[in-house]
């Protein structure tokens, strides 16, 4: 379905970050960022890919602690709005089991000019990846599975590298 972008009207937008267990629909989400003063829109999507660090990945399971993911995500977006001259910024993150090609996270930013949209979009996804309480477990083609950043990290942790 083509929604002519000229026919936009501001949607009621209460939440700038959302955790959902259904497919992300970027086409609906980007419409929430429309603004007659917006000349630029930058969007980022994280997709499930079929490989990670040499492992063949079949699907990915996300665990999200929603109360703190939302409060920390709101902080990230507020920081982006304080740092960059943007109009609107939203983020949606999936939880649950995702298949190859599915969208795990979406970030959208609208602004008058493109510099700010790109920079804010990049800031938000970078921060979301390192600050929000979200974990993913890869399920491999060989039947094994592993928590990303956890098991391999623990294997390689030597006492001398331990720090508070």
């Amino acid at each position, binding site marked *: 379905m083509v929604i002519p972008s000229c026919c936009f009207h501001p949607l009621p937008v209460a939440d700038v970050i959302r955790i959902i267990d259904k497919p992300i629909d970027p086409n609906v989400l980007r419409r929430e960022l429309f603004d007659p003063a917006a000349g630029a829109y930058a969007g980022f999507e994280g997709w499930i890919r079929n490989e990670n660090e040499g492992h063949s990945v079949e699907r990915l399971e996300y665990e999200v602690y929603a109360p703190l993911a939302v409060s920390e995500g709101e902080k990230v977006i507020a920081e982006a709005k304080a740092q960059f001259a943007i109009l609107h910024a939203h983020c949606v993150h999936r939880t649950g089991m995702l298949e190859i090609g599915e969208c795990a996270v979406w970030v959208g930013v609208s602004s008058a000019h493109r510099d700010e949209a790109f920079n804010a979009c990049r800031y938000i996804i970078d921060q979301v*990846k390192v600050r929000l*309480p979200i974990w993913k477990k890869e399920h491999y083609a060989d039947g094994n599975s592993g928590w990303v*950043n956890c098991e391999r990290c*623990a294997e390689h942790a030597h006492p001398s590298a*331990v*720090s508070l």
Partner: protein
Amino acid sequence: MSKSITVRYFAIFREHAGVDEETVAIDADTAGDVFQQLKNRHGSREPLGHCKVAINDEMADWNSPVNDGDTVLLFPPVAGG
């Protein structure tokens, strides 16, 4: 002095502990003490600096004090996106 602390485990920590949540009697001053003393529960050899902690649903530091009745959330290294 022993405190009653409710501990919540996430992701690999939960798998190691075998429970989402448990209440323990523990002699701990800080969130870091809780992590170290529960090594045999969450089973992690991660450096503390790789992990995160929240107390009563607020992000905290490893040297944040814990009080009797607090809920401490132990977060393994995050991997959003």
